């Protein structure tokens, strides 16, 4: 302080005797001098003095001097020294932290914390000020460039969003910052690195520009200069920046992959020689952890599949996966590094068949050599291993079997009885061992791991049913399913074990009626679930167990093929309704998704648990639950008869609304049935009508034909008669013939009478019967008529011949005429009678009429003969 005071004296002159100026007064004078001095030297000295006071009298300098300092940046930018002082001063007053020697005379302690923030706010009110500072980054002078970097860092710390926007908007702002990474002075480079880390936080646009400005190249250059993972904290800073650029930024991830930067990651994981115990300094651990994060950022489970796939492929191709697997199997690796490496390997192989296959074939350098998977699972079921490590193994196992049908079937295969005696330890054996171990966490891990073999794989669900276990010597082997159910009963208060088993069973039974059948055949299964789901304990985790039991019961209903008669779909449904009550049952199911760990587990495939007690639900199970919950609820809810399912809307209804709806449905169904019946009747009637219509048409045409022929015949007969009249001679013979004709005519007469009788006595039903007769009948009658007609024609011809003979018989003519007249009279008589009958029949309906006409025509046919 003495030094400062003497400096002050030289600037301000000797203070007046007796009156020691206060800090505020001194600052005021200095600020005045900075603003109004005409000489640069004076301004520079004042500025230096302000800088010296800016820690102790931070508030005073900031409050009074801000304008003056900004003015210096603007007006005196050519003088590096004064700019340097001004920047340093601004750095001090905007620093996010407070200084030890800072004096807080007039301010309460509560506001001290944000002094820097307030001054930052004042400073950036004029965005040009930030532009000025950015401009000074181009000044090579250390005393300008360095404080400029520091000032920007302070500003960013205090007001990150605003500064990001200002820098984005200022031309070449980002590139100026990027240039700093090439500065040969390490202090500047390192501080610039920190500045960039701040700058790129949460701003995708800046991240992309920084990446565009070859950030990755520069960072890798720095990292390799510093000696990769053996480098100092600068390496970590570089990696932090890299993480910022890549996290949640698909464009940059794509750029990273396309720019072949993944290939440059591999050498980072080179291991120290095994003998070297000093290889794992704290910094090295941090560096490696950061590098692993970078790898994981490129292949997170939530990323677009295409991007992740191609990155994973590159990672295998360039040997990165191999390097990581080497770390897994190396000795002397710190537990946290090992844990994170396992997590990283997990994500590098997740869902990528090629990488999963590679991983399956990695062998551990043990004696005898065992697959890495086996060695990892051994750690998982070993309660002495750190919790985090065990979780990461399970995560790795999950990723290993994710969309890996081959891996899933291989795991189940190790459990099936095989002809060849398996000597070495297998994954399946390890998991079964864990399932039956006394440690709840091991149970949970093993059950969940086993369930991964069944995810979306119906074939393996059925295969696993075949697994038999020899419990003790002499006892019958027991199925794995049975054993799991027994274990469930024996767990007592071990919530974790119970949940593990319930998740395994749920995954197993879902979409697999065969498994449901086996489960229901176990006598204790349903009673246990009913008891659990019906119990009423209020502990959060107990509620979860109850919900899971209810869910499992629901699965038993949903995927039930009714082969176990005691627990058919309908019987289980009734059990739920009568023993538990539907409402209670649904409430219990909803408990699962209400649990706080459910949302955590559902969010991310990796286990987020910090301690063993937080490990209750698994991600894959949560996915299953989410997918099946609705289906299960629908299956359990009683349905109206028939399979008309409007489930979703019905679910949301109250019981009264529901019953009303059912009533309406019944009504609609009844109406629907009636409608169908009526439609059928109409169809039948239409068909009948068209057949009849065809018959009618047929008959009508026949009739008109007959009428025409009749006309012709009548005309011919008339001609015949005319000839007879003209004929001059008529012999006895002809008379005799005529007589014969008369007799014939009489004969016909009687026939006509008979017909008349027939017609008169023909009841309506008789006529209808005739109408209904087939077209065949119609044709037959027609052909009959035709035959008769033909006969008639023949007879007519004969008659004509005879008439020709009669021409000579004159004397007989009169008699004949009379006879003819008689005959005509008779015919007229008959005609009249026939017309009467016709009218009578017409009254009986059209069809009858037609038929009548037909009959009449026949009658006329006879008449014609007669007249002939």
């Amino acid at each position, binding site marked *: 302080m003495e030094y400062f005071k003497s400096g002050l004296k030289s600037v301000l002159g000797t203070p007046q005797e007796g009156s020691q100026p206060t800090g505020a007064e001194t600052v005021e004078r200095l600020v005045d001098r900075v603003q109004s001095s005409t000489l640069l030297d004076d301004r520079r000295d004042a500025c230096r003095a302000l800088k010296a006071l800016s820690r102790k009298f931070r508030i005073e300098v900031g409050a009074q001097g801000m304008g003056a300092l900004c003015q210096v940046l603007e007006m005196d930018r050519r003088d590096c020294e004064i700019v340097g002082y001004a920047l340093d001063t601004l750095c001090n007053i905007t620093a996010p932290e407070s200084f030890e020697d800072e004096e807080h005379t007039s301010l309460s302690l509560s506001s001290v914390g944000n002094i820097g923030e307030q001054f930052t706010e004042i400073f950036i009110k004029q965005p040009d000020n930030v532009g000025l500072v950015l401009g000074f980054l181009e000044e090579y002078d250390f005393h300008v460039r360095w404080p400029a970097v520091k000032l920007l860092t302070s500003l960013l710390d205090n007001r990150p969003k605003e500064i990001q926007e200002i820098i*984005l*908007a*200022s*031309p*070449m*702002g*980002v*590139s100026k910052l990027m240039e700093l990474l090439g500065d040969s002075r390490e202090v500047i480079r390192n501080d610039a690195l920190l500045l960039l880390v701040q700058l790129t936080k949460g701003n*995708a*646009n800046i991240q*992309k*520009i920084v990446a*565009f*400005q*070859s950030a990755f*190249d520069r960072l890798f250059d720095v990292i390799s200069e510093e000696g990769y993972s053996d480098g100092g904290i600068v390496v970590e800073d570089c990696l932090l920046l890299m993480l910022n650029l890549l996290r949640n930024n698909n*464009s*940059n991830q*794509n*750029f990273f992959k*396309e*720019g*072949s930067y993944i*290939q440059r990651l591999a050498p980072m994981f080179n291991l120290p020689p095994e003998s070297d115990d000093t290889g794992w300094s704290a910094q090295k651990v941090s560096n490696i952890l950061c590098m692993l994060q970078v790898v994981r950022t490129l292949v997170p489970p939530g990323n677009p599949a295409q991007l992740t796939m191609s990155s994973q492929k590159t990672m295998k191709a360039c040997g990165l996966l191999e390097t990581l697997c080497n770390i897994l199997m190396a000795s002397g690796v710190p537990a946290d590094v090992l844990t994170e490496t396992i997590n990283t390997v997990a994500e590098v192989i997740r869902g990528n068949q090629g990488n999963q296959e590679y991983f399956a074939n990695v062998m551990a350098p043990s004696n005898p050599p065992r697959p890495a998977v086996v060695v990892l699972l051994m750690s998982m079921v070993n309660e002495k291993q750190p919790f985090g490590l065990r979780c990461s193994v399970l995560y790795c196992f999950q990723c290993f079997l994710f969309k890996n049908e081959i891996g899933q079937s291989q795991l189940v295969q190790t459990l099936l009885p095989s002809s060849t005696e398996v000597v070495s330890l297998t994954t399946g054996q390890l998991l079964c061992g864990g399932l039956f171990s006394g440690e709840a966490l091991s149970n949970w891990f093993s059950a969940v791991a086993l369930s991964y073999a069944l995810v979306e794989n119906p074939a393996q669900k059925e295969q696993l049913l075949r697994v038999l276990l020899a419990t003790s010597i002499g006892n019958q082997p027991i199925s794995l399913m049975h054993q799991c159910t027994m274990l469930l009963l024996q767990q007592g208060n071990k919530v974790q074990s119970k949940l593990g088993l319930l998740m395994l069973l749920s995954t197993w039974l879902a979409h697999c009626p065969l498994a449901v059948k086996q489960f229901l055949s176990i006598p204790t299964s349903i009673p246990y679930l009913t008891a659990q789901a019906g119990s009423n304990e209020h502990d959060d985790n107990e509620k979860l167990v109850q919900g899971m039991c209810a869910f499992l019961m629901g699965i038993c209903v949903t995927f039930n093929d009714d082969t176990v008669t005691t627990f058919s779909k309908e019987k289980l449904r009734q059990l739920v309704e009568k023993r538990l009550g539907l409402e209670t049952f649904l409430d219990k199911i909803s408990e699962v998704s209400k649990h706080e760990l459910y949302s955590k587990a559902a969010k991310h495939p990796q286990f987020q648990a910090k301690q063993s007690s937080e490990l209750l639900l698994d991600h894959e199970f949560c996915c299953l639950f989410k997918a099946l919950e609705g289906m299960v609820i629908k299956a359990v809810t009683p349905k109206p008869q028939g399979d008309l399912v409007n489930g979703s809307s019905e679910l949301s209804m109250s019981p009264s609304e529901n019953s009303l709806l059912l009533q309406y449905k019944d009504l609609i169904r009844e109406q629907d049935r009636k409608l169908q019946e009526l439609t059928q009747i109409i169809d039948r009637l239409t068909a009948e009508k068209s057949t009849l219509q065809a018959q009618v048409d047929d008959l009508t045409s026949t009739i008109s034909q007959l009428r025409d022929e009749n006309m012709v015949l009548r005309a011919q007969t008339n001609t015949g008669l005319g000839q007879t009249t003209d004929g001059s001679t008529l012999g006895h013979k002809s008379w005799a013939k005529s007589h014969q004709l008369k007799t014939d005519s009489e004969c016909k007469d009687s026939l006509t009478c008979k017909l008349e009788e027939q017609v008169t006595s023909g009841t309506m039903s008789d006529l209808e019967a005739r109408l209904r007769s087939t077209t065949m009948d119609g044709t037959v009658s027609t052909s009959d008529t035709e035959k008769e007609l033909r006969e008639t024609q023949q007879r007519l011809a004969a008659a004509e011949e005879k008439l020709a003979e009669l021409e000579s018989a004159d004397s007989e003519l009169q008699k004949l005429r009379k006879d003819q007249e008689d005959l005509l009279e008779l015919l007229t008589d008959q005609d009249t009678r026939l017309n009467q009958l016709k009218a009578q029949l017409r009254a009986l309906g059209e069809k009858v009429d037609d038929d009548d006409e037909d009959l009449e025509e026949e009658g006329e046919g006879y008449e014609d003969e007669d007249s002939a």
Partner: protein
Amino acid sequence: MESQPNKQTGWCNGIAVDLYSGGVGKSCLLLQFTDKRFQPVHDLTIGVEFGARMITIDGKQIKLQIWDTAGQEAFRSITRSYYRGAAGALLVYDITRRETFNHLTTWLEDARQHSNSNMVIMLIGNKSDLESRREVKKEEGEAFAREHGLIFMETSAKTAANVEEAFINTAKEIYEKIQEGVFDINNEVCCTFLLNLAS
């Protein structure tokens, strides 16, 4: 040229620049070029998206880095950051919307001001498949290109017509400049490619 070191054969770093209002189909162009597919509904480009593809020029494999930049005015300042460091740019307008053509001058001034003077600029009239709705004649595009010393082409991201050619011709032009030594890149073929849309 900024150093975009290439460890293999070559880099071509380019920017696709989009002039403000957006929607002229620049992102579709890029997708058609990198993935050979057309996506009729595309989200607005927010800021900048990256794409890459290998091409062969004179038997030499060159990897094109393409930066697809947003067309909206709001992103103008962001887009500017990409001019420097780009070896080439595709300036795209929409032939069915005259206003996108009218904006070309503004864009060009901006680009020339912030970019390397040797940047190869290709003018592209996109959506040539929509002939019935055309508002800007091909001749107008040609005239503008001639006047400002640009290469010109009409493309359709939908039918893929000329898309390949547009990128490859620009890349060839850049490659020639590299051979001539206009771009100062020691031995390494490196070019940034800016895809900017006049929309």
